């Protein structure tokens, strides 16, 4: 005998966060890992456009460089840099977890704060170094 689900509008992941499930650092960093991953995957279009423009002609590359050097282009590149550095740092955190270590509440929070701090600092270092 099959049982009818109690309700068809039960909250599904990730939409349970907020009204039904208190946001925590760990869950927020987890969803941010996915969001930055999606953003980086979308951004690969621009990396493909970048090398394709270089292979096409100096004029085509000049247009790409102009767009990348514009204010909007620079803001997108800074955001993309942060997404990359965050996904890289948190990815290393995930690879460490894959060894079965670091799951205690205290260490999960410590590595989480470390990832947030490192992502901001490294993004700043990269952009300062780019202008030196």
């Amino acid at each position, binding site marked *: 005998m099959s049982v009818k689900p109690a309700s068809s509008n039960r909250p599904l992941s990730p939409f349970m966060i907020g009204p039904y499930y208190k946001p925590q650092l760990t869950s927020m960093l987890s969803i941010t890992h996915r969001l930055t*991953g999606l953003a980086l995957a979308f951004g690969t279009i621009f990396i493909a456009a970048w090398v394709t423009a270089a*292979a096409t002609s100096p004029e085509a590359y000049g247009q790409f*460089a102009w767009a990348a050097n514009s204010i909007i282009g620079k803001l997108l590149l800074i955001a993309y840099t942060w997404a990359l550095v965050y996904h*890289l740092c948190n*990815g290393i955190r995930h690879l460490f977890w894959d060894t079965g270590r670091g799951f205690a509440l205290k260490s999960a929070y410590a590595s989480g704060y470390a990832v947030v701090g490192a992502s901001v600092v490294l993004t700043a270092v990269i952009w300062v170094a780019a202008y030196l």
Partner: protein
Amino acid sequence: MSLRSPLSQARGLGSAKDGVGHWWMQRMTAIALIPLSLWFVFSLVRFPLLDHATMVAWIHAPLVAVALVLFFLAMFYHAALGVQVVIEDYVGNEGVKLVSILVTKFALFAFGAAAIFAVLKIAFGA
């Protein structure tokens, strides 16, 4: 005690009939991307690559061309695997799920092919 048949255990493919292939390749490409993406960002900071002549000269170096091809292979593969997981987790409708995965995989592999071809064209060019 396991309820799984000896044949099922020997195959090790689990209930999804897919084994650990997807999971494993996601980790392999992730590990490869640590040094490759660090090198890539370092190069972007180190050289004024928005200048066409500098960019072409940079890719002309064999080691740079090979590293870029490896970086693009790992990056587009890793992106395709990751986006697939997100779609599988959040898209309920089977038809929409299948079409979404097809479209994103075709797109990412097309962009990856374009990026690698562009590197090779510059590397082999005069």
